[in-house]
């Protein structure tokens, strides 16, 4: 078996009494697009910062291609590129100057820089913007430039912290196409995201909640971890129904999807049978029901809200 690109072994980080990351263990094989999902404050950023060697783990260890991320952080840093959540390049420098600076900072041989810069500009479709100040770029182009800067030393691993947040669909698509290209070339990609449709695009997904890893599997396997199909009902008026149904014992959660209400509950078959027998809300008008395949949104909701009842017992 090849050495994992990233190997976390009971990685923990606490700030005083606050456990930001607890006992995180996972292995990511090279070439994977690993989607790291979790609510704000779940520990995603702390994990990435530990992996980048910016934050010292309280206990446990993390290795990138075999090198410890803290003790050998200066070696490890040449092995990954990092695209921050916030635009963090030099606005007053031009696109080309940014790429060349990070190339120099990452010790790319001077002779190779011009060719690499050209290649990266072409890859990210920024050749025409080459002499524009980075601050004048649109949000999408900025992220593409950040990606180019992160790739300048040709790292085998790429960390992206919410790279598409705030981007329009066109740029999101472009970004993901680029990531596929990179993955195809064997680069391991570790990406955090809020967008569930993006989670679907990953080859593997990890859920973190309150510093703990709840699940790690390919998206399909995660969706298969639901007991059964999800119940979707149509009721009028829908907003009032949503509020009322949330209060019903046994219903863990309700989410609104294209005008229908999707219910998370342990035994939905039984519930439907009961309701067909007697609809308990005279002021609400029952229109119909159907069964829906769980998507990543459902997976995220179930894991992040702790709806254990709708999930199959976690496989080890």
């Amino acid at each position: 078996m090849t050495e994992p690109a990233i190997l976390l072994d009971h990685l923990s980080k606490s700030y005083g009494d606050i456990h930001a990351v607890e006992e995180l263990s996972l292995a990511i094989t090279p070439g994977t697009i690993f989607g790291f999902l979790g609510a704000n404050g779940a520990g995603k950023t702390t994990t990435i910062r530990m992996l980048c060697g910016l934050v010292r783990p309280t206990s446990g260890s993390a290795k990138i291609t075999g090198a410890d991320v803290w003790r050998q952080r200066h070696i490890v840093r040449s092995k990954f590129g990092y695209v921050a959540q916030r635009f963090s390049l030099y606005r007053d420098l031009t696109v080309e100057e940014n790429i060349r600076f990070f190339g120099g900072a990452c010790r790319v041989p001077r002779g190779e820089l011009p060719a690499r810069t050209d290649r990266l500009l072409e890859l990210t479709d920024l050749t025409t913007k080459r002499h524009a100040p980075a601050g004048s770029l649109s949000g999408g182009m900025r992220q593409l430039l950040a990606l180019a800067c992160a790739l300048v030393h040709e790292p085998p691993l790429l960390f992206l912290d919410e790279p598409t947040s705030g981007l329009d669909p066109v740029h999101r698509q472009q970004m993901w196409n680029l990531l596929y290209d990179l993955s195809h070339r064997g680069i391991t990609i570790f990406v955090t995201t809020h967008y569930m449709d993006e989670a679907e695009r990953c080859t593997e997904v990890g859920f973190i909640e309150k510093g703990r890893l709840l699940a790690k599997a390919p998206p399909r396997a995660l969706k298969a971890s639901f007991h059964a199909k999800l119940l979707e009902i149509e009721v009028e008026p829908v907003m009032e129904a949503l509020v009322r149904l949330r209060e019903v014992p046994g219903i863990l959660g309700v989410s609104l999807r294209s005008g229908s209400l999707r219910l998370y509950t342990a035994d939905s078959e039984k519930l439907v049978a009961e309701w067909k027998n007697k609809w308990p809300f005279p002021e609400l008008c029952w229109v119909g029901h159907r069964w829906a395949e769980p998507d990543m949104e459902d997976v995220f909701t179930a894991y992040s809200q702790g709806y254990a009842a709708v999930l199959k017992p976690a496989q080890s």
Partner: protein
Amino acid sequence: MKRGSFSAIASVAYKEFLHIYRDRRVLILLLILPPVFTLVFGHAFEAGEMKNETFQWRVEPATVTGEWDLLGHAVQAALIIPQGWNDGLANGDPIPLRLYLDGSDTNTADMLEGSVQKTLGDFQLSERQVMVDALPEDVFELAKKLPVQVRKQFVSMMEPWKTEGKILYNPKTRFIDYVVPGVIGLILQLITVTLMACTLAREREAGTLYQLMVTSLRRREIVIGKILPYLAISVVLIVGIIFLTSWHFQVQFHDPGALAVICLLFLLCSLGMGLLISAISRTQTQAIQFSVFFLLPVFVLSGAFAPLEQLPKAIRYVSELFPLTHFCRAFRLVNLYRATPQYYAEDLVLLAVGVLITFLGAMILLKRVEQ
């Protein structure tokens, strides 16, 4: 250091240079302000050469009565000749003259009192001469009976003693010669500390510091790379100010080697101070505030414009903490006193210690930030 390290430092230095070059306001500040400051300060302190020759007597009618009338008559001193003064002189019992002095500016009162005393003394001497000349012949005959020794002593005592002064170290007694290191130091301290303090804080504010830290750049490479462009600019500024003062104010500079060493140590110390401020501030605003709080006492207490000896002893210990104090002292020792290194070695050592402390402090603080 490995070759890769040099090229990494060069990348940081070039990037930092681009920041300065792109920020037109800072560029103008750097290019316009130092020469303008030099000219303004230079001319401002030329006024300090004002001599007592401008001291003028004005006779007023006997309307001055109170102690508070100086302002009303727009004078700084009033010598009141009381009624009956002539009678007092005639009776061999001179009434003291009353002298009112404007003490609001502490220097002026002393200066005025000295001038008044001198004027009075001169007047008294000339009157005495008139009196002696008018003495009857027999008095001189009588005096001739005194022993020669006593007569000679008497003559020596009657004549005011003269001093033959020779002014050393600043023979033209031009204040500009004294104040040049103050001007150079002030401008450089202002520019290096504030600009340097802003560099790291700006990166932290923009989030680029994280991006820098996840590259394989070492901390020392970042720090050295950031300092180099400012060091180069400061050297250019020093040379510019020296040219300007020697051309416009005819200030002479001696021993360029020693002056270069003093300037370099001072610059590194200032840059280190800026770096230290940079390391403790989260934002550029904070960096500027810290800089101002640091620079204000420096300007007042460093002896850049006035001799430190005027300050109380306790405050002088505080002054010794500022690099500008040692810079000015060493610079003057070389340029005015033409002193040999043994006289200013102490200042050089202290500046070097300052460089070490600020740089190490900044490194440690940055390390803490990193974790």
